[in-house]
């Protein structure tokens, strides 16, 4: 509840003639700031950003309506994020928690990340307290359930996952003022998960789909990561890294931005190794520069027969 006070006073000042100053309210809510940050720090994801802006607008209007005494039922805020690994689901969830906090829809704005381990118990009677504990920790913030479909194991009828789902559903309904639940995972598996748990599907109001990144976007992400760690590509190594991405994207287990991060970590490793092996005195510039050879050593560049190996 950061802004409502100032928002209300803005409204009072501007709404004298029965008019509501939307611009002032928008400014007071700081939504633009959060969305701008999102725009700057997250590359690509156009449909997701658009959807986030829409949700933020809807929440703002709902809040304004409430302040003006119009009927404003609290919108359903539970969401599902679907997409392949490394497409930024967790990052967006953190942002979502902040947007919701700024609009006063969650009180604390923290994110609790939970997986099957945090919700499902190991023996009879273990699940309920465990799920309850996690739900309590998430209250006032956002509960992010990664790979939510692991909760439900149809092949094992004695599995306790169903119990956790039922408690979750109950909490999503009973504590809708205290808690926002975001479930996330691969598209296809989430679809079957929702299909077998129609109660969950109907309680989730927003379905956001995270598209895969294009090579250009991955390159931009790599640049951002490298710059943030105070390294840089030279012209040649940039071209090689681009080629690396093209090759890597074709291999199995490609995890978008996460693969890029891992690749950069390994490149840093090789760069450090190369520098030490050379020895002697190096320019400061050299400590930050990534050479083509650092990238070329990657297994991805080896002959096609080896390509299917692992990511090294």
């Amino acid at each position, binding site marked *: 509840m950061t802004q409502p006070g100032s928002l209300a006073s803005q409204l009072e000042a501007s709404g004298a003639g029965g008019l509501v100053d939307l611009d002032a309210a928008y400014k007071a809510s700081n939504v633009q700031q959060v969305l701008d940050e999102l725009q700057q720090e997250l590359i690509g994801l156009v449909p997701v950003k658009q959807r986030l802006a829409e949700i933020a607008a809807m929440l703002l209007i709902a809040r304004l309506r409430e302040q003006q005494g119009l009927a404003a039922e609290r919108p359903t805020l539970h969401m599902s994020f679907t997409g392949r690994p490394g497409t930024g689901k967790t990052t967006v969830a953190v942002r979502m928690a902040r947007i919701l906090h700024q609009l006063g829809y969650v*009180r*604390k704005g*923290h994110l609790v990340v939970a997986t099957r381990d945090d919700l499902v118990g190991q023996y009879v009677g273990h699940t309920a*307290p465990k799920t309850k*504990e996690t*739900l*309590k*920790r998430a*209250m*006032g*913030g956002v509960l992010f359930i990664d790979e939510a479909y692991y909760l439900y194991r149809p092949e094992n009828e004695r599995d306790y996952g169903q119990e956790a789902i039922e408690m979750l559903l109950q909490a999503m309904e009973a*504590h809708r*003022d*205290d*808690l926002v639940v975001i479930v996330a995972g691969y598209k296809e598996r989430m679809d079957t998960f929702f299909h077998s748990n129609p109660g969950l599907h109907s309680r989730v109001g927003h379905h956001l789909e995270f598209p895969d990144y294009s090579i250009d976007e991955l390159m931009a992400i790599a640049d951002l990561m490298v710059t943030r760690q105070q390294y840089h590509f030279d012209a040649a190594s940039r071209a090689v890294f681009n080629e690396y991405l093209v090759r890597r994207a074709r291999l199995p287990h490609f995890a978008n931005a996460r693969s890029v991060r891992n690749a950069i970590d390994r490149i840093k490793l090789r760069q450090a190794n190369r520098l030490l092996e050379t020895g002697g005195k190096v320019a400061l510039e050299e400590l930050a520069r990534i050479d083509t050879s650092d990238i070329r050593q990657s297994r991805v560049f080896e002959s096609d027969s080896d390509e299917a190996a692992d990511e090294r």
Partner: protein
Amino acid sequence: MRLTQGTFSYLPDFSDEEITEQIQYCLDNNWPVAVEHTDDPHPRNVYWDMWGLPMFDLKDPAGILAEIRECRKAFPNQYVRVTGYDRRFTRQTTALSFLVQRPADEPGFRLERQEGHDRVIRYTLHSYATDKPAGKRYEE
């Protein structure tokens, strides 16, 4: 006789909003909060029954308030209190403890005198409620 125990005991009973604010104060101080209940309200009875485990790592009072409600529902005719525990090394004690529910009818205490040697009198308190066996106290 209205039982006065713990912090705020001379104030009127708290509403849920006021309880929420007090719990928020505990959480802001990083005190884990526990819910306890008893039907033996003797002032020296420190062993109240725990309602679940103390709640760690919470950021928001809503979860604790939900537990308080559960406890009230399960024991509508018992005393329920909330405690905040300060675990810092030099303190390590209950920092805040207040009642959040009391039975509708509180019979109170009787003063008992015990004759000792040489006309010495020892005084003690006896809770009328504990005349009945545990579980049957404070029933209508």
